[in-house]
Structure formats: structure tokens, C-alpha cells
């Protein structure tokens, strides 16, 4: 009894000995641990919820079975880094893009790892256009400017397609159909608008004969000309010759994709003072001629970002303007998830029609070889 009294007395005394500094320290250390844990969870993408597994039967997907998150995620191409693989798989983004790696095996293994267990596989993309060559550490290709005949263009396209297909790529952001390349002098075909178009057509046939989809870029043209610095965003007067290759290739119905640039265009394609990639005016003009997939150029550039007062507006505009696929190489999966949520909110609030989203997702899934019902 005496001992118990002593113990409880001791406890009270000890309790009373806690100074304000000690109490503050205790509270702060608990907060550091909680916030630290939440930061780690965020960094590892643990705060991003899993998307349900899509139901696929006989290569057929019922569009209504996909959640809105899944649909919007399908409209995004991200950088296929190894450190974010689990998060991209969890979100079921539509595509992964690869930068330069040291050898073919590394590409193959990473792509296999990415595609493992995916009911809807990733679109696997690269920027292989001859002299722009992420594989140049171990493989060389002919520059587009060195191609003179349509036969040669077909062969180069087929060679690049075979190479890409072997590694597991399904889409190439190539060819460049800008009429002039004043910067690199190797990225576009040489000749007048008709010659450039004919060479591009043959190259596309060659590339696609190997099961790799081609993307003509950069709509509406004049992206590879020397410009005066203009707050890092480029403006150009587009004439009918610039859009001629896009129009002709679109008419041929073979071309799978077109990539839209950040250029502020006037003239034959007027982007209304906005960068073309976020201009519904420019994209409507393209959509009226082309029924394939419209890709945005990479959106994560400071010049484009600085055009907007808020990143949320940029994200919304790049989807609502009519791009089917948005290329965003932000390495933070939380940011990509946030972008998806912003677009989702726009759809739920009726600012962006769900029909537009469905039409884009249908195009993407069809390109991936699915029947969409």
C-alpha cells in the first residue's frame, strides 16, 4: 500500500517535471514523424489509388466499363522511367515514352516489365527520326535529309520500324514534315511541298509495315526555323504550303497520328494568339481533315506554363482543345494524377464533354488493336 502510494506520487512528480520545452519537443517530433511518413508515402505514389482492372474479352473493350479516371489516364503519355513504373501501371496511363538508354537489351527488358500484367498495354513511343536518334549509342540510322527517293524513304521507314518493333515500341513520333529545317538541317525531308509529302508518305508506309504507328509533326509547321527569342515561345506565320503535307497525309487515311506544336500560329492556321497545342481553333481545323490521333507536344515546358497564370488551366485547356493524347514528362506521378483529376473535375462540371473524352479513348484503344463497343 505504501509502495503504491509512493509510485503514484513519483509519477505525479515526474509528470510535473516536464518543462514546456520538453512538451513542445514531444509534439514537434510526433508531427515530424507523421509529415515525414506522409511525404515518403507521397513520393512513392502510395497516395494514388489503384484503378480497377479493365474487362477485356476477345480484344474487345466496353467503353462504359472504364472509369473516367481510367479514360483520362489512357490519354496521357509519360516518360517510361524505371523509378516510376509501378505508379504508371497503377494509374494505367496510355503510353510511355523512352529517352536514350545504353543498349537494346535495357529497352527490351524495361518494356517487357512495363507491359507485364497490363490488360490494356501501354503505347510505347520513341522519337526516332534519323539524326534524332535515342539509340545512337549503339545503332545509327539515315537522316531524313539524306533521303532522296520514295523507295529509299520506304526502306528507311521499314528499317526503323523493324528495329523499333523488335525492342517493343509501338509508335514513333516521326516523320517531321515541316518544310524547312534551318536548325539541324537533318530532321526533315528536302524538296518542295509535294516532294516532302511524297517522301513522308513512303516513309510512313515503311514504318507502319512493321507494326509501328507513324506520327507526322509538327502541326501546323515552321517549328524548325530560326526565330527571334520571344519569351521562349515561338510565333510564326503559316502559309498553305506548310499545312499541305498534313492535309495530303491525312487524306491518305494511312497516317495514324499528328503531333501539334507550341507555336503561336497565324495565317493559314490561326491559333487565335494561343500556342497551337492549346488552341481549339487550330485543333478544330486539323480535326476537320484528320481522323487519327492528335498528340500534343510535350506540355511541361516553362514557356507554355508561363503563358498561363495557373497550371490547372493549362492542363484543362490541353485536353479540352481537342488533343487525344497529352504528352507530359513530369517525373512526379502525383502531378500526373493531379492533372487527371483536374480534367475529371472539368468533365463532371460539364466544362468538357464526356463524348469528347470517349471519342479520344476510342481512337487510342483502336490504335492499340482493340475493338471498342
Amino acid at each position, binding site marked *: 500500500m505504501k509502495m503504491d502510494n509512493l509510485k503514484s506520487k513519483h509519477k505525479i512528480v515526474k509528470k510535473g517535471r516536464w518543462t514546456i520545452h520538453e512538451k513542445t519537443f514531444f509534439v514537434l517530433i510526433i508531427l515530424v514523424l507523421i509529415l515525414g511518413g506522409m511525404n515518403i508515402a507521397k513520393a512513392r505514389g502510395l497516395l494514388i489509388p489503384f484503378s480497377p482492372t479493365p474487362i477485356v474479352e476477345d480484344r474487345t473493350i466496353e467503353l462504359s466499363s472504364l472509369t473516367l479516371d481510367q479514360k483520362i489516364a489512357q490519354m496521357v503519355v509519360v516518360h517510361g522511367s524505371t523509378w516510376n513504373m509501378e505508379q504508371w501501371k497503377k494509374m494505367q496511363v496510355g503510353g510511355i515514352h523512352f529517352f*536514350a538508354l545504353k543498349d537494346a537489351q535495357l529497352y527490351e527488358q524495361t518494356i517487357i516489365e512495363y507491359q507485364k500484367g497490363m490488360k490494356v498495354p501501354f503505347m510505347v513511343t520513341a522519337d526516332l527520326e534519323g539524326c534524332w536518334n535515342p539509340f545512337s549509342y549503339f545503332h545509327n540510322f539515315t537522316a531524313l535529309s539524306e533521303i532522296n527517293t520514295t523507295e529509299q524513304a520506304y526502306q528507311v521507314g521499314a528499317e526503323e520500324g523493324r528495329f523499333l518493333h523488335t525492342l517493343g515500341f509501338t509508335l514513333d513520333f516521326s516523320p517531321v514534315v515541316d518544310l524547312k529545317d534551318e536548325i539541324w538541317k537533318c530532321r526533315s525531308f528536302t524538296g518542295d511541298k509535294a516532294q516532302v509529302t511524297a517522301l513522308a508518305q513512303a516513309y510512313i508506309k515503311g514504318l507502319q509495315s512493321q507494326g509501328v504507328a507513324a506520327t507526322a509533326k509538327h502541326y501546323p509547321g515552321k517549328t524548325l526555323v530560326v*526565330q527571334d527569342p520571344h519569351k521562349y515561345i515561338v510565333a510564326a506565320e503559316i502559309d498553305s504550303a506548310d499545312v499541305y503535307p498534313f492535309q495530303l497525309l491525312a487524306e491518305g487515311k494511312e497516317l495514324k497520328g499528328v503531333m501539334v506544336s507550341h507555336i503561336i500560329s497565324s495565317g493559314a492556321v490561326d491559333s487565335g494568339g494561343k500556342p497551337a497545342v492549346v488552341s481549339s481553333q487550330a485543333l478544330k481545323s486539323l480535326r476537320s481533315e484528320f481522323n487519327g490521333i492528335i498528340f500534343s507536344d510535350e506540355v511541361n515546358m516553362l514557356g507554355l506554363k508561363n503563358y498561363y497564370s495557373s497550371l490547372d488551366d493549362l492542363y484543362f485547356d490541353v485536353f479540352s482543345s481537342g488533343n487525344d493524347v497529352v504528352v507530359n514528362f513530369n517525373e512526379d506521378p502525383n502531378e500526373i494524377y493531379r492533372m487527371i483529376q483536374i480534367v475529371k473535375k472539368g468533365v463532371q462540371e460539364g466544362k468538357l464533354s464526356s463524348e469528347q473524352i470517349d471519342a479520344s479513348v476510342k481512337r487510342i484503344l483502336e490504335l492499340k488493336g482493340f475493338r471498342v463497343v
Partner: protein
Amino acid sequence: MVPPKAWVVINFSLGLVIVLLLLNLLGINLPSLGQVQYVLDREPPLCLAYWQGHYESWTDLDSCCLEAYKQLNCFFHQQNLEQGRVDWVCRTGESSVSYGLNAKAYRYCQQQSYWR
């Protein structure tokens, strides 16, 4: 026994850590030293595209940054060229296009959210 002054320092430091953790959690980025250097640097940014012995200035700095980042590696290599001084070179292989950037342009590139 920890002296009261030490407690104040410890608790203040923990408070600072909490603020930083909270900012990071909410996605609010503080300006980095690189950003400050970029603003203070009066030299204009320079990006050069190099292919087959030919250098050409590329004024679309955003696109230049992205392409430089896509290369296998970037390394410090100062060169004085007709177009200006280059401090960094980003490249993959001999046969494809590589990029030369001055320090100002390189710092601008480092501010891009994809740059790690």
C-alpha cells in the same frame, strides 16, 4: 540535462523541418539556389544544336531543354564557339544531334519539372 537555450534551438529546427515537410506535401516549391543564380546571371541563355560538325543556335529554349534532357548524359565541357561560350554538352552518340548549352541555359533547363 539539456539547457533551455538548446531546447529552443532544437524546437525551432524541428519547427522549420515541419514547415518544409508541409510545403513539400502541398507541392509548394521554394525558389532554389539555381533559380536565384539564373535570375542574377545577365548573360543571355544559349542553346546550340550540333550535327556533323555544324553548330546552329536554337532559340526555342524549352524544346532545347527537353531534347538535351533526353540524351544519355550531360557533362561539363567549356568551349568557345563562334555563336558564344558553351559550358555543358548533352549527347547520346556520335551520329546523332547533340546539344551545347551555356550556364544560363543549363540553369533554366534545371528548373523544368522533368529535369532530375
